């Protein structure tokens, strides 16, 4: 069973549908205890970092996510959910994240070619870092496959945790991994067959 953390942020209709579509058992929950019953946890999120981080804390889900991942339960953060896995975010000030991935969330604009459009919206290709074993969530994905991104901030100073990058006037972090903690900046639930295969591979993790 997979629990999707529901803390009042973002659009989870498609995410829920994508699990249903691949035949995985997933449920939405606001209840920290229900989260503990799951084998795996999804942390979704769309919107602003500070607001989401506060809501996650208030919901009581923050603590149970930390407890459960410490026990080795697989966690997948998506988009803002991935950003919240980091230590800090510099989106409108400085905010504390879950600290499960070492690094910072920083604006894209100063780090890419000047004049590029922000947000980075659209389908962009994934590239796996050389000399690293391919992440298990990319079991069915090839280098160069496209996934759907929508973001203005990205994970930085996190080289050792990067499992894929994408090029947008510079190299941006597309996904991260630290043991049982996974995060994708892109939306697998909006990335067609490639995205569904990533969700499937996550469900298949042991």
């Amino acid at each position, binding site marked *: 069973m997979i629990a999707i953390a529901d803390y009042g942020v973002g659009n989870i209709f*498609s995410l829920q549908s*994508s699990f249903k579509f691949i035949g995985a058992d997933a449920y939405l929950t606001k209840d920290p205890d229900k989260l503990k019953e799951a084998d795996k946890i999804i942390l979704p999120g*769309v919107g602003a970092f500070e607001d989401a981080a506060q809501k996650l804390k208030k919901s009581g889900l923050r603590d149970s996510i930390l407890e459960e991942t410490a026990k080795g339960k697989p966690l997948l953060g998506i988009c803002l959910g991935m950003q919240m896995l980091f230590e800090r975010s510099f989106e409108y000030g400085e905010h504390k994240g879950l600290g499960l991935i070492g690094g910072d969330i920083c604006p894209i604009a100063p780090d890419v070619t000047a004049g590029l*459009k*922000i947000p*980075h919206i659209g*389908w962009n290709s994934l590239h796996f870092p050389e000399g690293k074993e391919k992440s298990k969530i990319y079991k069915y994905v090839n280098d160069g496959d496209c996934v759907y991104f929508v973001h203005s901030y990205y994970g930085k100073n996190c080289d050792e945790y990067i499992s894929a990058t994408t090029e947008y006037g510079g190299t941006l972090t597309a996904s991260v991994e630290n043991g049982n903690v996974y995060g994708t900046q892109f939306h697998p639930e909006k990335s067609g067959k490639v995205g569904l295969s990533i969700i499937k591979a996550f469900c298949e993790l042991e």
Partner: protein
Amino acid sequence: MITKRIIPCLDVKNGRVVKGVNFEGLSDVSSPVELGRFYSENGADELVFYDITASYEQRALFTDILKQVASTIFIPLTVGGGINTIDDFDRVLKCGADKVSVNSGAIRNPNLIKEAALRYGDQCVVLSVDIKRVDGKFKVFAKGGRENTGIDAIEWIKQGEANGAGEIVVNSIDTDGVKKGFDIEMLKAVNSVVNVPVIASGGAGCIEDFITLFNEIPTIDAGLAASIFHFGEVSITDLKQELKNNNINVRL
């Protein structure tokens, strides 16, 4: 590298796709769910569903269909038509839309974009503008292109971006339906004043028109069309292959 997006637009009325659709191999060509799935499996990068119904009952049917689409198609979905209030945003987002396109609703209520962007984020708000030349100037038209609002289109779009619109759809009334190519001049004028993605709409008649669009305006993000895809005059798979052959980066 980021790819150029190809976006088919489906007009939905009474739960059916209108504007005659002509496809072999589809059992029900005017089912939004079937057609949406067909496009998503054949290279569409995103789908736009336009609700052209008027009544409350029909609107409920539309959201019902949207739910069915969003349960089976896993690419970005934009919904437009009849978006006048924050409640309208809420209604379609809950049914699986990723982005909401506002047009006349933003003209009637200039705060709508700001309110929606604050609540749902800029990435969620698409400003769609129908533009026509009047005495050589780009003017915003309302009511499906029938009424000249007198508003300067370039200023309107700049203001929309400042208020939080995360994408701009430029629909040229001058080239719409003519099938002689996108309105390059108008698109250049808009694209040069905004820093958010711009989607070209109106005028595509063949594959060459898309190649011209992306070659003439390398920073334009996407091309949108309806009938040429629905009638099978242009297949999205062929279109994207041709774009790639012309060194335009697309998702194949």
